[in-house]
């Protein structure tokens, strides 16, 4: 309507449009400088704002990264300290075990060595007596007496043969005794070998442990120094721990769900089957509460055993108090497990009752028949009801890992998000600056005619002084 009225300023609409266009271009040309300033001011302000926001986010990301680094290093330090502590405890155990038996071992070794020495002395070979007859035979053989020497020699020969036989018997006897003594040494040698073998094993174990400690200590040092390598190792292992613990917690949740199914139905017998708290059945909530209490007891038990360290208060308790706590939590767990086994049995009874009733209502005689092997499922349910609470105790370990690694994972995610946000803000800031320039160019686009004229005029104004200069130069000699 407005446009139509504008086109009627002259009798010819085309002319009216042309006049309007010229007027518009003229107005735009006159406002060009101010418009450019406005566009520049707006886009610059926005770009600066985005750049500031980007700097701020980048700064926050740096702070988060530093904090994450601290958390990671602290967690790594803690884990390494625990490992080294455990290795030292093992070495202490090994040393205590071996040193406690060392006096006894030393005594046995000394006794065995003394026995061996004594036996060895006894087993020394006695050299045979030197023959005394040789010179006498020689002297008699040189005597000049008829046949008298021959008789003497014969007697000597006889005596020598006899003495030789006796010497041989003695020698054999002595050899037998020596062999007996040497045989007696064998158990002592074996004892020494075994004892020394044990010592060797213990020493090797200690050396092995010390090597492990060395390795842990090296890692610990890199962590303490905050080296990037240690940080990257800790970061990746934290991610692995996160996913593994999440998987195990998923399995534990499935176990808890099975547990819930076992006790939810019989709980209706205790708290009623039709009471509701909000939109949830009271029986279901009661069953859930029992499972939650079991998990809590499991957590406390693990804390008291110092397997997990989620509650520093429990870890700081005196040993006496901790032992009491172990006893109490275990007793409660046992009680809960027994109750669950009872409820699982009740579930089977209720199920059979319901099946029988439904069979009666359906006028189905086969439904009322009792399966002969029903006791197997009943026992299995009772067993599951008893075992699952204890199995859920071990969920405390992956839970602790999950909680600890979650901090790191959330930190890493936060860093990623902040980094992406900073990048987006920076890109937006730069983009807006360029957008301002583009907007100025687009503004100038319909003004190309006046701008061209302006450029020509500017060029024309710029030329005359140069010509004047040239003419002056020409005039000068």
């Amino acid at each position, binding site marked *: 309507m407005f446009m139509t009225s504008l086109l009627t300023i002259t009798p010819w609409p085309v002319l009216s449009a042309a006049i309007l266009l010229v007027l518009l271009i003229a107005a735009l040309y006159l406002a060009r400088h101010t418009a450019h300033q406005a566009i520049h001011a707006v886009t610059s302000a926005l770009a600066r704002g985005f750049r500031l926001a980007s700097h701020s986010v980048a700064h926050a990301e740096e702070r988060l990264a530093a904090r994450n680094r601290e958390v990671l290093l602290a967690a790594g330090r803690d884990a390494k300290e625990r490992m080294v502590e455990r290795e030292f405890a093992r070495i202490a155990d090994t040393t205590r075990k071996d040193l406690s038996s060392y006096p006894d071992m030393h005594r046995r070794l000394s006794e065995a060595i003394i026995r061996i020495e004594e036996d060895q002395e006894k087993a020394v070979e006695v050299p045979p007596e030197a023959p005394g007859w040789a010179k006498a035979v020689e002297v008699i053989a040189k005597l000049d007496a008829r046949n008298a020497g021959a008789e003497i020699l014969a007697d000597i020969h006889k005596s020598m043969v006899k003495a030789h036989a006796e010497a041989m018997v003695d020698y054999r006897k002595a050899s037998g005794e020596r062999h007996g003594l040497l045989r007696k040494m064998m158990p002592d040698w074996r004892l020494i070998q075994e004892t020394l073998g044990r010592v060797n094993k213990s020493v090797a174990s200690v050396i092995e442990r010390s090597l492990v400690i060395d390795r842990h200590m090296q890692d610990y040092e890199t962590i303490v120094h905050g080296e990037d390598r240690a940080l990257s190792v800790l970061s990746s292992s934290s991610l692995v721990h996160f996913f593994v613990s999440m998987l195990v917690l998923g399995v534990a949740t499935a176990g808890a769900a099975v547990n819930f199914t076992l006790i939810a139905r019989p709980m209706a017998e205790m708290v*009623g089957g039709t009471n509701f708290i909000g939109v949830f059945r009271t029986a279901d909530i009661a069953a859930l509460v029992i499972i939650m209490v079991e998990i809590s007891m499991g957590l406390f038990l693990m804390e008291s055993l110092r397997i997990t360290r989620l509650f520093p208060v429990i870890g700081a308790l005196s040993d006496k108090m901790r032992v009491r706590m172990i006893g109490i939590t275990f007793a409660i767990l046992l009680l809960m497990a027994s109750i669950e086994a009872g409820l699982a049995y009740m579930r089977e009874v209720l199920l059979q009752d319901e099946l029988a009733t439904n069979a009666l209502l359906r006028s189905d005689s086969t439904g009322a028949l009792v399966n002969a092997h029903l006791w197997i499922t009943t026992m299995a349910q009772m067993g599951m009801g008893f075992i699952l609470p204890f199995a859920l105790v071990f969920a405390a370990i992956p839970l602790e890992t999950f909680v600890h690694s979650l901090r790191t994972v959330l930190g890493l995610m936060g860093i990623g998000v902040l980094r992406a946000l900073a990048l987006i803000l920076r890109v937006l800031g730069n983009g807006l600056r360029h957008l301002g320039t583009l907007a100025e160019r687009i503004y100038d686009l319909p003004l190309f005619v006046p701008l061209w004229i302006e450029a020509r005029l500017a060029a024309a104004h710029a030329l005359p002084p140069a010509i004047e200069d040239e003419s002056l130069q020409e005039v000068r000699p």
Partner: protein
Amino acid sequence: MNWRLFVGAALLLSACSSTVPHNTGVYLLVDTSGSYNRQVSKAEQIILFALSRLQPLDSFAVARIDTASFSEKNIIAKATFDDRPSTANQQKRAFASRVQKFVDESKAASYTDITGGLLQAIEFLNEKKPGRKEILIFSDMKEELDKGYVRNMPLDFKGFEVVALNVTKLRSDNFDPREYLSRLEAWRVKVEKGGGRWRVVNDLDRLDGLL
């Protein structure tokens, strides 16, 4: 301080717990008049079906339609099932045995006082105050009143669902089906005028959507 906390927690819990009843009240009227008495065994099938569907805290009553149905004496069996499932099962078994006895000993009545039965049903269910109220009528819906019985009155069916089951066709209906249709229409108008919902289920093999 501690007791205040405890009271606060108790109040919060009681506020959370739902006060809206979730239970169902079912009143089944079984027509025993004339030739329809032969259909009573079919009614047993429906009663057992209803028993299998009902949950703890639900109320169920089975009453006979005869010459004078507006009476507690006409109630054959009634029960509000216990909160504990095992006790509810026992009640259902006892209920089924009472119904079985009724089916075995049922005798044909001379007249059919459906309105009286409906009045009794409304009274019973209103007393029980269930979350959902359902009146099932196992009848041919042909009302025949004895002399002196006044049943020409408006009925308050607000919050009730009235389901006519196994509405058999009479011999006269075969001659003129309009009679059958007008009979059902009259009942529909009566129930809906009273603020209730009306439904007819003739196929007893398709009772799944009943409760």
